[in-house]
């Protein structure tokens, strides 16, 4: 089995996790910029983080034969501070030419506030101005349905954005339909306590089809499982799905979306 982990916060994981992922067949992973668990004090903190994502983490992954790609932004959890967001947005272009940067992400909303929306619009403008791919984080729990609708409106209002170049992550049963209907890709995040279980993720593939969908572990410093994608593939096999469909969901689909950025290359055959 080979798979792409399209959303993993490896800066918060141990080297043992890289070993396990490589052993399970991970050939490439993508690491979106995210919240550190505390608010950074300045744009310089983000500059250091972006160096970690573009210099250090790719080397750590390469030790285990895994290609490492990344997405840059200020996470919506820190977007309430408009001044900090403006400073960070000015830093991002310094890193956009790094060879492992795929686009802008994970942008989006957290509590669906007006400032978060403004910073989201600024990120979308940055992506549209440079024709970057976009990876979107949708809010948690009770805020997800409303936030997803607000996010889709922001993207729809920018006519420069091709919907097929936007991945809306963390979809669940109440948001997957509107994301696919808008022409975007949808990501299902496999978490042990929230978001989506393996059984529900497979249910959604069975109900909505396998086009424009991927699974990810989003493994970070909270309860999360770096091997969630291959484990869900095993669960799909238990249901009797054929290997071709499984490979489509865990390898071909993320490859198709991510290859819209020419930097994304997986030479595994």
């Amino acid at each position, binding site marked *: 089995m080979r798979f792409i982990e399209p959303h993993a916060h490896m800066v918060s994981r141990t080297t043992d996790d890289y070993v396990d992922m490589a052993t399970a067949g991970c050939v490439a992973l993508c690491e979106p910029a995210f919240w550190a668990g505390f608010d950074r004090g300045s744009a310089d903190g983000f500059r250091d983080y972006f160096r970690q994502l573009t210099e250090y983490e790719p080397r750590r992954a390469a030790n285990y034969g895994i290609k490492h790609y990344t997405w840059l932004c200020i996470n919506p959890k820190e977007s309430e501070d408009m001044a900090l967001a403006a400073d960070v947005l000015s830093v991002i272009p310094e890193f956009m030419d790094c060879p492992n940067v795929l686009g802008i992400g994970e942008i989006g909303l957290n*509590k669906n*506030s007006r*400032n*978060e929306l403004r910073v989201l619009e600024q990120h979308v403008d940055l992506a549209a101005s440079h024709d970057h791919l976009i990876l979107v984080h949708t809010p948690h729990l009770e805020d997800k349905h409303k936030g997803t609708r607000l996010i889709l409106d922001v993207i729809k209002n920018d006519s420069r954005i091709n919907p097929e170049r936007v991945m809306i992550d963390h979809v669940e049963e109440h948001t997957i339909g509107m994301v696919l209907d808008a022409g975007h890709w949808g990501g299902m995040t496999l978490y042990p306590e929230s978001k989506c279980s393996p059984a529900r993720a497979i249910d959604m593939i069975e109900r909505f089809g396998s086009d424009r969908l991927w699974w990810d572990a989003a493994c970070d410093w909270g309860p999360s499982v770096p091997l969630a994608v291959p484990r869900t593939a095993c669960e799909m096999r238990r249901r009797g799905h054929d290997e071709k469909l499984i490979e489509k969901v865990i390898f071909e689909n993320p490859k198709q979306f991510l290859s819209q950025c020419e930097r994304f290359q997986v030479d595994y055959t």
Partner: protein
Amino acid sequence: MAMTRQKVLDQYFMDARHKLIDVAAFLDRVERAEGDADFRLDAFKDAMKRLDGGGADRANDVLMAFSDPTEEPINKASGKGACGAWTGKVE
């Protein structure tokens, strides 16, 4: 490919049974405890009612029962986290 109902039961009944008993025990635990509950318990009980409906969209219905139904962005994010149920207050 779709599983037969028998296969779904074979594969998932024990897991669902286990989770349902956990829900029952959670409600018993809340009942035994002292003090007032908050909006989350009402939301939970309302969501449970969605399980009785027919059709095959219960997961969507339960998720919507916990969701903020308002449409306008809030004025300011007062914190980072989500608690799992809408407070019922327009912010």
